[in-house]
């Protein structure tokens, strides 16, 4: 049983069709790298998976729950699909530790002590054990994004969605975030990553999907796709990215 299954998913914003009858299955343990030119629908696809955007047609099932089910079912999906945003979106009134402890406390119903202990362990995992008492505004972009990853992990999701997690970062800060993501992949986390980091795709990805105009046009192994892209559009795209 696939962890994520899209069947003929269509998404429109007004008259603009962003996703056109997309079919896709993702198994547990896969690290899927989603690439494509801007406006191709990759971010929207990601946001449809945890129901931040409602779909207009077809069906999308995550962990056996359809995004078309009711509100409480949608919340269940979101608890299984952690999300990391381009702009981090940390809660500014909370310290790093409180940010990470918030999910377990309010979503999983953990006790305060447990939630804080868990949060501390997660901050350690992303290399920020000594930054727990700092507010987001006191952290660098790379640190903020690592806190955001810890925050998403704290709810113990089965799947992690990354929406251009390094695009808002300076080049020298990107590697610290990518390293955390790599170790997560090595632990066997299922991940869907929208990114322009082709080195990451090659090293960490188990599957690469190239989207254009709201459709999946190439789906395959990252090493072979990046080494010898047969699709003309993908070849052009890769030339621009590198």
């Amino acid at each position, binding site marked *: 049983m696939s962890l994520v299954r899209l069947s003929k998913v269509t998404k429109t914003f007004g008259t603009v069709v962003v996703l056109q009858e997309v079919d896709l299955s993702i198994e547990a343990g896969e690290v899927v790298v989603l690439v494509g030119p801007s406006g191709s629908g990759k971010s929207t696809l990601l946001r449809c998976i945890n129901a931040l955007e409602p779909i207009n047609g077809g069906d999308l099932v995550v962990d056996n729950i359809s995004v078309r089910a009711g*509100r409480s079912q949608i919340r*269940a999906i979101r608890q299984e699909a952690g999300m990391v945003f381009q702009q981090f979106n940390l809660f500014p009134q909370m310290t790093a530790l409180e940010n990470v402890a918030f999910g377990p406390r*309010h979503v999983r119903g953990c006790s305060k002590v447990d939630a804080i202990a868990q949060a501390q362990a997660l901050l350690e995992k992303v290399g920020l054990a000594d930054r727990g008492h700092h*507010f987001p*505004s006191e952290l660098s972009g790379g640190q903020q994004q690592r806190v955001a990853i810890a925050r998403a992990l704290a709810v113990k999701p089965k799947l992690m969605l990354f929406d251009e997690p390094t695009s808002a970062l300076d080049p020298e800060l990107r590697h610290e975030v990518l390293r955390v993501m790599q170790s997560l992949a090595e632990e066997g986390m299922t991940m869907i990553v929208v990114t322009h980091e082709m080195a990451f795709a090659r090293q960490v990805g188990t599957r690469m999907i190239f989207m254009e105009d709201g459709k999946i046009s190439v789906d395959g192994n990252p090493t072979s796709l990046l080494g010898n892209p047969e699709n003309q559009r993908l070849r052009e795209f890769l030339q621009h990215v590198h």
Partner: protein
Amino acid sequence: MVRRRTAELITRVRLAGIAGAPDTITWMATMEFDWSVIVDATPALLGGARLTILITLVGLVGGLAVGFVAGLMRAYGGRFLSAFAFTYIELIRGTPIVVQVMFIYFALPVLADIRVNPMTAAMTAIVVNAGAYIAEIVRGSFLSVHKGLKEAGLALGLPMWKVLLYIIGPVAFRRMIPPLGNQFIVSLKDTSLFIVIGVGELTRQGQEIMAANFRAVEIWTAVAILYLLMTGTLTLILRITEKRMRML
């Protein structure tokens, strides 16, 4: 009586202009600030100020509650709730508060057989009036919070009410403080309009004393200073609240 004094004053000022120093001195003498007038008026004025504070406090607490509900209905309610809140806000913002309190005090008994004493009418008017303005402040502040925060909260699997309460609310609240301060001060001063239904608040007390002793300068100076003390205190409280919170 008042008219005669005014005429007299005008004549003196005119004479002073033509004849020079001696007359000016006589004119100044009649304007001498009599502190004993203020001392005598103080108990009554303080009593009035107490009522002003009471109406304002009840009005602001109630207004905040009404404002939060109406503002959130406007921002996040469905079409029906939003339209309901919108109608309330427009009705109140579109009519003067004097008309509103007159309506509550004089028209409601006729219309619906609801009889209220002046104090209740005054408090209700402030609650209803401040509530409408605060609703817009609340709506604006909540909607000004970056939508990424809402998405981050929802993406964790939180229900919307928890996102509003724990994530957006605290950020929005900090942005509300300056415009709320404005509204608090406006509401406090608006209580002076309840003179029209005979509530014995500060302005009414001043008016009554003035009608008896004609010491306009002393009385209105004292009344103005009392208002300044009250609004100043409000400003100070808001300033401290703002300082103690990290702006986000």
